[in-house]
């Protein structure tokens, strides 16, 4: 069975190569490039044999763990898995899942990247050729390396198959797109943080991290020969046994996923889970709550909304991480809540364009404009308000709670915390109110729901920048009292209570006015908005 699968894989390969000459060229070039890289890596590994065991261990374990991570994440994010042995294609044949899993695992190693990775894994043995036990160490190194590579491939296949099976083709694509956007967003801050952190990192910390890594599935197989090289043969065998057990468990889990997919070749479309619907059924009745329920479902299911929400949440996390690493002073965390409020409040400023032509349903139902506005705003505030409150409070606690730093007294801290919360509420509510009007004035081109978040619709840049500028400017102006009082609370903590009152009170007023005016605009110009969003497609 396994052999048949491998023959099939080779036959598919041959067929593809015979058909396209350029694939042969790519293959040869890629092969030479890969072999060059491999040779360089092997020379490096051989050189490691002369280095102390701890150094060789650090390089092999960290590199091996990266290799496993790469095989897991890269296909998920970027390329997908080579579909030539896609389990769905075997659905009509009586193929048992376990041989299929093993066959796919070995089949993956028949490709150029797989073969090179396998050689590299086995080649780590070069680093352990030292001392009188060199032959035994070499054998252990090869075994550990091969187990490590197999673990990498199995984990990658398991993750992609599970994602594809659970999410369905479309949703898997969308989920990875969202993750990709977030990863890009985080890349800059991550490098900044890493660069800032390097001088601060203690070598002892690094060694401790390595020790932990060596006991995780990512590092087990790579660390076993290192133990033996250091003389700890018992630990080495335990680690190797664990690594093999992990590999077996991964293959079994993967076979289970395959078994499910063999039964339902088409990944089941993600059904709306019943228990969540019940939660939304607790919303009050009426058209505006129907709009709110629809919007809440979109916040969860539409990648564009998910990406918007995630971007608003990522910034506070990044700030916190930077403060945690010492790149930023802890005091910077005072702004976590206000920044989240500003980003979330502006998230609805082009909401009719996000509906796209589906907006006709509101028009055909004769839905009053204020119901439309109120529903969208309520959907945002229902989760945005609690979130901003939590972000403000957590930020305030980390930034300078009296029981941590011992710097300020409790009354002062409470005043400043109230100030931060007031500014956050003011920015969120004002932003929501302003967005309710702006999105009813003139939608600008937005991505359609199915588009890649990386593609940007033509003609969106200038009007988009303008709309965002107007939204942010008006929001800042309307939230100015709360923000100013919050800033003042740094000097005079009693201003914090005033900021809270201003933020919540004026903010609520702005929301009410925004819903009213935006609704009136919508009543007057609904058909024109529909024409605009249809033309923009």
């Amino acid at each position, binding site marked *: 069975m396994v052999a048949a699968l491998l023959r099939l894989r080779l036959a598919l390969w041959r067929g593809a190569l015979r058909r396209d000459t350029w694939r042969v060229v790519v293959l040869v070039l890629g092969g030479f490039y890969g072999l060059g890289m491999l040779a360089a890596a092997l020379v490096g590994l051989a050189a490691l044999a002369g280095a102390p065991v701890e150094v060789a261990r650090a390089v092999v374990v960290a590199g091996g763990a990266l290799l496993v991570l790469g095989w897991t994440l890269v296909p998920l994010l970027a390329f997908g898995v080579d579909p030539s042995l896609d389990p769905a294609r075997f659905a009509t044949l009586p193929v048992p899942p376990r041989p299929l899993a093993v066959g796919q695992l070995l089949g993956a190693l028949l490709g150029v990247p797989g073969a090179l990775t396998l050689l590299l894994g086995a080649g780590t043995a070069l680093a352990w050729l030292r001392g009188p036990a060199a032959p035994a160490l070499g054998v252990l190194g090869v075994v550990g390396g091969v187990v490590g590579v197999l673990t990498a491939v199995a984990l990658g296949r398991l993750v992609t198959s599970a994602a594809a099976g659970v999410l369905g083709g479309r949703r898997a694509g969308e989920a990875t797109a969202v993750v990709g956007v977030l990863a890009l967003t985080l890349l800059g801050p991550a490098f900044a943080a890493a660069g800032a952190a390097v001088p601060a990192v203690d070598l002892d910390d690094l060694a401790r991290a390595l020790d932990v890594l060596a006991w995780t599935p990512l590092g087990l197989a790579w660390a076993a020969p290192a133990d033996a090289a250091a003389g700890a043969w018992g630990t080495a065998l335990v680690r190797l046994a664990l690594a093999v057990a992990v590999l077996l468990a991964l293959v079994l889990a993967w076979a289970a996923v395959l078994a499910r997919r063999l039964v339902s070749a088409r990944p089941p479309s993600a059904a709306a889970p019943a228990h969540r619907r019940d939660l939304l059924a607790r919303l009050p009745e009426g058209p505006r709550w129907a709009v709110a329920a629809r919007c809440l479902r979109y916040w969860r299911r539409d990648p564009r909304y998910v990406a918007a929400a995630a971007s608003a949440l990522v910034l506070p996390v990044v700030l916190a991480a930077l403060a945690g690493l010492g790149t930023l002073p802890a005091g910077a965390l005072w702004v976590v809540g206000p920044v989240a409020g500003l980003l979330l409040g502006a998230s609805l400023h082009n909401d009719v364009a996000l509906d796209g032509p589906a907006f006709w349903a509101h028009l055909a139902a004769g839905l009053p404009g204020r119901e439309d506005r109120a529903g969208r705003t309520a959907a945002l505030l229902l989760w945005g308000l609690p979130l901003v409150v939590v972000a403000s409070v957590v930020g305030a606690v980390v930034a300078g709670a009296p029981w941590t730093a011992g710097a300020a007294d409790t009354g002062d801290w409470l005043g400043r915390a109230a100030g931060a919360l007031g500014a956050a509420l003011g920015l969120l509510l004002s932003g929501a109110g302003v967005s309710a009007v702006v999105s009813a004035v003139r939608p600008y081109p937005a991505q359609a729901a*199915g588009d890649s978040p990386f593609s940007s619709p033509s003609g969106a840049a200038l009007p988009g920048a303008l709309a965002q500028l107007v939204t942010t400017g008006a929001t800042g102006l309307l939230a100015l009292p709360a923000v100013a009082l919050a800033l003042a609370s740094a000097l005079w903590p009693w201003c914090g209570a005033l900021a809270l009152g201003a933020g919540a009170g004026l903010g609520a007023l702005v929301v009410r006015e925004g819903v009213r005016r935006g609704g009136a605009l919508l009543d007057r110009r609904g058909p024109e908005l529909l024409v605009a969003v249809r033309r923009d497609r």
Partner: protein
Amino acid sequence: MDEDGGRASAEDGAGASGAGPALELVGLVKRFGGRAVVDGVDLLVPAGSVTGLVGPNGAGKTTTLSMATGLLRPDAGTARVLGHDVWADPVGAKRLLGVLPDGMRLFDRLSGRELVRTTGELHGLARAVARERAEELLDVLGLTAAGDELVVDYSAGMAKKAALACSLVHAPRLLVLDEPFEAVDPLSGASIRGLLGDFVAGGGTVVLSSHVMELVERLCDRVAVVAGGRVLAAGTLEEVRGGRTLEERFVELAGGGERGTGEGLAWLRRS
């Protein structure tokens, strides 16, 4: 030109739901960039009738129906639904009106069930009523099994049926359907026809557009031929056909004269 035909059979069909036309379009005009896509459309749709709007591509059918249903503001003219001016009294008109537009997306991140329920609630139905009607409509249209799948994963025909369910959920008196049978398989087409039959038997009125002449002949008792943004002929099926098939009559009215003589494209024929 269509006035006489319209009035004559308004009397035939008036029995179903009292006096007055279900849809009355007077002098509708829409220009896009100076070109009149709809150039003075008058149409009278008697209550209780099934009226087919036929015409070549680009005739202005969709634009006309969009203006008749409050989705596109006309440059001139009026549209009335059972006496309510669509543009002066939109709420009154839209309560009585069910719409299936062509080429418009749905809120497709909802499941079919959620979509129909939500549409009902947007129309102001109580939640319990919206739920009950959604189940019945999904059942009749054969969507119950797919009710929890997201509409974005539906086939074109399934999405069309979901949209039809949405247009019916608030129990309208006039149904305006743009290309309701496009991409719909024969079985579903039969169930949709049955549904429309029941709707008309219950006193409702249907206006639909289609390219398929056989379908219009089978389904509609009245026809309006639209081309170049105008109504070229309207009346009962018999009046418009004048003893021939609708297709022959349609080709004659809507531009048979423009057809070439067949002299060209010689390179297409094998010598």
